[in-house]
Every structure is written in C-alpha cells, then in structure tokens.
C-alpha cells in the first residue's frame, strides 16, 4: 500500500511522529493528549512539535490520571472524535484498566454498533532501558485476552508508521504498544508519504525451513541476532513478526509450522499465561500432525522485571533464543 516513495531515514520515534502529523493534517477529528505529550512532546519526544503545529485544542497535556485519559477518550470517540492517547509507560496504564476493558472495548457491542470507539491507546512497553520499577513491563497478553480491542506492536520504524496510520483510521479501539527500547535504536528508510499496514496480518521477515520463530516488538531484533548464531549452526529459521497479537494471524503461523514442523515463540512478558502459550495452542490446533518437536517458548519469568542491576537476569538474550532454537531443532 506504499505510495510514491519519498524516502527518509527515520527511527521509530520519527516514524510515529510522522504518522501523527499525517493524520492530524488529514482528519480534523484526530486529537492527541495525555501526560506531557503537548508542550514537551512526551517523555520520549514521540509527539514533539505537534502542539506547535496543530494547536492546543488538538495536541494537549492532560492532568495526571490514566483512567480519565481513556475514559474521556471514550466519550470523545462516541461523540465523533478520534483520540490518540498516551499512557506514559505501559506500567502506568493499569489505573485505566477499567475504562479500557469495560468501555473502550465494549461500547460498540453494548450499543449494538451505534457508537464506536476509534481510540488509539499508545503505551511504550518493555524492558532494557535501565529504568525504575513499573517502567519495563510487557503485559500485552492481558490486552490480547480482552474482547473488543486490537493489540498492535510494531518492530521497525516502517511498521510503526504504517500500523499507526491503520490504528488511527480503525474504528476499533487499538492498544498500540511501542517497544521503547528500540525507539531510537533502529533506523531505516521510511516513506514520507501516507501508507498503511493492515492490522491482523503477520509479516514473514525471513523464510526458512528448519524452524519457525514467532516474535513481535523489540524481540524481533533479538531474534535476528539469534539467527546469526543459528546460521552458524546451519539452522534455517523462518521469522514471523506478528505485528498484532489480536487479531492474531493464525494462517501465517500455521502455514509456517506446517512447513518447518518446529516453532519457538519469543516474548518479553512473564512466562505463564502469556502470548507464547496461545501460539502453542494455535499450532496444536492447526498443525498438530506436522509437529516434530514441542512448541517452545522463550519468555521472561513469572517475576517482576528486576531493577537495572538485576535486569540482565530477566532480559532475553540472543543466546537464549538460539539455545531454545537449537534444543527444538535437535529434539
């Protein structure tokens, strides 16, 4: 869906900012707000410059209250606006949990389609930035389990832009989780034009024959590092970037495992009841007879992400991914 390509080197922060810029320009109903997103442009500078360009009515700072940020967005959306709101960190989205699950996710169902809630709830997530407690969480599975929302997690600047444009233009509520650890770490050429990437379709980043690896967000890059080790070991990996965990692209996962017979899912979240288990369930349902090894998972532990000095224990290293890939291939 890419237009005429005026390409520019962007990191994810630039790419998201560009998506907002385009949407603010194209649709007067788009408003952006949250804690410190206006004057300052967000603690990660993702919305920098937008208030200056579009004014205080459209891009603004709110009081410090996450439930209110989402709850007012539900009202605005029912009345016709398209709010893009920020939870400063995913670990601070919990006060808004009730508004997300009980309203943003349900207003259309409750009103039998009469009202809709085209809200994007942005939240930087994940570890690896040497942060205080609550600043490193990956709790995407709880949103995946929540009927009525979509959950999008980009892994590159290009994807971030295309998915964000889709998210803003979607008439559903989208939880948009941003892998803050790679906000500025990955740079690539991204079209300056408006383009969108459909939500719900996975991206086969590289095809391979020995094993399928499923990841998303910041873990994609770690898997790519692990693939260097795998290659050295003569293992051909098919890497699938989910892009969204709900809707989840069963078909792409199933097709891949039918080919490779083996699968490892990599997520940063706590282990139990996480996204990996769902992937395992799906491949059991769709490709049981093709399985040559138990679908495996590389995840965090069922623990709180430790403070920086202990975080290396929790974080997933390329070696650990490779370790699991090798074990699964050798099974």
């Amino acid at each position, binding site marked *: 869906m890419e237009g005429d390509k005026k390409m520019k080197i962007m990191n994810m922060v630039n790419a998201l900012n560009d998506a907002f810029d385009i949407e603010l320009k194209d649709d007067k109903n788009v408003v952006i707000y949250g804690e410190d997103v206006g004057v300052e442009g967000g603690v990660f500078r993702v919305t920098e410059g937008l208030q200056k360009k579009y004014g205080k009515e459209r891009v603004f700072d709110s009081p410090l*209250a996450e439930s209110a940020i989402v709850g007012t967005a539900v009202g605005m959306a029912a009345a016709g606006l398209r709010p893009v709101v920020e939870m400063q960190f995913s670990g601070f989205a919990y006060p808004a949990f009730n508004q997300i699950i009980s309203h943003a996710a349900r207003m259309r169902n409750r009103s039998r389609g009469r009202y809709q809630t085209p809200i994007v709830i942005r939240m930087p997530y994940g570890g690896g930035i040497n942060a205080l407690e609550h600043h490193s969480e990956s709790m995407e599975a709880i949103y995946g389990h929540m009927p009525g929302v979509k959950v999008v997690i980009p892994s590159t600047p290009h994807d971030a832009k295309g998915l964000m444009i889709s998210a803003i233009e979607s008439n559903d509520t989208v939880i948009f989780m941003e892998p803050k650890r790679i906000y500025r770490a990955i740079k690539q050429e991204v079209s300056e034009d408006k383009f969108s990437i459909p939500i719900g379709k996975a991206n086969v980043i590289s095809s391979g024959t020995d094993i399928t690896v499923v990841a998303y967000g910041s873990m994609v890059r770690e898997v790519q590092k692990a693939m260097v080790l795998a290659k050295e070991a003569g293992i051909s990996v098919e890497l699938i970037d989910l892009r969204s965990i709900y809707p989840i692209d069963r078909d792409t996962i199933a097709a891949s495992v039918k080919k490779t017979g083996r699968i490892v899912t990599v997520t940063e979240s706590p282990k139990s009841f996480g996204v990996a288990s769902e992937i395992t369930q799906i491949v059991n349902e769709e490709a049981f007879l093709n399985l040559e090894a138990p679908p495996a998972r590389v995840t965090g532990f069922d623990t709180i992400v430790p403070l920086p000095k202990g975080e290396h224990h929790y974080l997933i290293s390329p070696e650990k991914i490779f370790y699991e890939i090798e074990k699964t291939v050798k099974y």
Partner: protein
Amino acid sequence: MFKEYDPIEDKMFNIIDDKGVVVNKKWMPKLSDEQIVKAYKDMLFARTADLQIVSYQRQGRIYTYPPNYGQEAIAGAVGAIMRDEDWLVPAFREMGAYLAKGVTLKEIFLYFMGYEDGSLFKGAKNILPMSVPIASQYLHAAGIGYEIKYNKKDQVVYAFVGDGGTSEGDFHEALNFAGVWNVPVVFIVQNNQYGISTPFKVQTASKNIAIKSVAYGIEGIKVDGNDYFAMYAAVENVTKLAKEGKGPFLIEAVTYRKGAHTTSDDPTKYRTKEEEEDWDKKDPLDRLRAFLIAKKLWTVKEEEKLVSQYKKEVDRQFEEAENYPAYPLDDAFQFLYEEMPDDLKKQKFEHEKFLQWKETRK
C-alpha cells in the same frame, strides 16, 4: 444561586414544601400550567411503569431491575429541559430522562429482559447506553463535553451518578478534567441516601456532595431532589450557564430510594420503617400533586383514570418486548469489531458446527 445556597454552609435549595406550597417565590421557575401538568404526567407515567416492572419481575417475566420509585422528579426535571441535541449520559436509575430523550419503555424492557438491543434507542439522539460500572460514565460525559467545545456546538451534557458513585476515583477524575477543560457538562448526583445497603454517611465524611465541587474549582449546589420546581430551576440555571461557556456544574439532588436497590434486594435488612415513613412525606409526586390540586389543575379522579390508561400502555409495550425475536448467534459476535476478525469468524463457525452435531444427535 450558588452563593445563596452555598454547599459549604450545607444549604439546600428548595421551592415547595412537603405540602406542595411554594416557599421560595424568588426562584420559582416560569412554567406554564400546561408544562407543570405535563411534568406531573411524565413523572406519573414513569412511576406507573416502574411499579409495573417490579411486579413483572415478581412474576419472573424480567430480570433484575433497579426501581426509580421516589426519585422521579430529578430525571423529570432534566428531561423537561434537555433538548434532542443535548447528551444524556445515564447511570441506571433515571427512567424519566430516558423517556424524555425518546427512548421507549419497550426498549427499557428489552434491556432488562436481557437483550442488548434494548440499548439501541432508535428514536433517541445523543444518549449513551446504561453504564453499569459505577461512576465510569462520568468520564465519558467529560469527554463528550470536550467534543462539544472542540466543535463549538450548542449542546449540554447531562450526566448521572448515585451517591455511592461519588466515592469512585472516576468521579473525581471526571470533575477534575471537566473543570480544567471548562466544558458544558451538568453532573447530577442522585443522592438517594444509599448505595445498595450502604448509607450515605459510610460513603463520605463530607457534609454533602455539592460541596465536592469546590475541589474542582466549579460551582455546585445541593437541591431538594424531591421538589420538581427546585430541580427544574437549578437545572435550568446551570444549563444556561453551561451554554454560555461557564463550565461544568455539580448538582446534588437529595432524594430517597423508596424501593429496593434492585428487585433482588431487601431493604428491611438495613433501614428502618420510621426512616422510610419520614421520607414518604417528601414524596415528589405527592408534593407536585398537592401543588396542582391546590391550583385546581388536577384531580384525584383524573389521576386514577390516567394511571389505568398508563398501565395499559405499559402492558402493551411490555408484551411487545416479550414478543421480541430470539437472540441470534450472530449478535453475540458481530458488534465486537467493525469487521469480524478471522479468528472470531472461526470461533463462530466452529460453534455452528457443534450446533449441527447437536442437532443430528437428537
């Protein structure tokens, strides 16, 4: 009005006394006789329906229902002032306001019979469905207020919550956001003295609820919610101010839930007969009726006739609701997303396969 009835001094705004006599001429709203009679009729209709529903429920023809009995003047006054283009953000105990918006009794019945279709409100503009998670809807009202201001519309939002709801964090956040944004929202608290079994004094140590407006830099007023005229005058006044951009307002409507919390509740467990009898004297319909009778605008006979007419109408709509078509499987699936995701389609498909299998086993 706010200075005169300062909630900090715990003053309450009222216009008629328990006998329906005007004791506060200054603030008596300018209403024609017809308007007043209509107001009374609307309240009477709401009450008649409300009491009927409770009896349907006893017959097992409808599920849990939260009666409005005793609180009719509040929604009645708001309903009389609210225009089509204004927004109603309801809790679940303001039937009169729903009806004024153009919601039908049948829809209300459908909802409590267990159909989401009851929230479609086909003939009503700008009304959100009932919000069950207490106080959460107040934030929606603030958000709608933002949209109104953003698009410079001539609209006002009327949002309802109960006394219990004022304890939730969302109540605070909504008033605070609305205050900062200075948006045209009238926040109405029906203080009916109880949140289920929990009395008002367990909800808060604050003198009253109106006073909480101070915390948000907005105006608040405590009103006798069983006094139709006081409610009308207060809502009329803040509506005018809200339209002028004078920001959000908080109205505490002091009332009493004469019935049970819902049809599954038994108030004798937590309140006394004496208390109930004391409040009976302040019944909003009795008071307005006394006023009308004194002005020779109403007779008891007229009322009897009307009530039996209303009962028939209520029955008619109830039976229509009872004959509503069965709930199709599709409706459990189709409203979650604008377009049904493949996975959800598959879930539906698998379930249909099971249903076929079940059919063949019979």
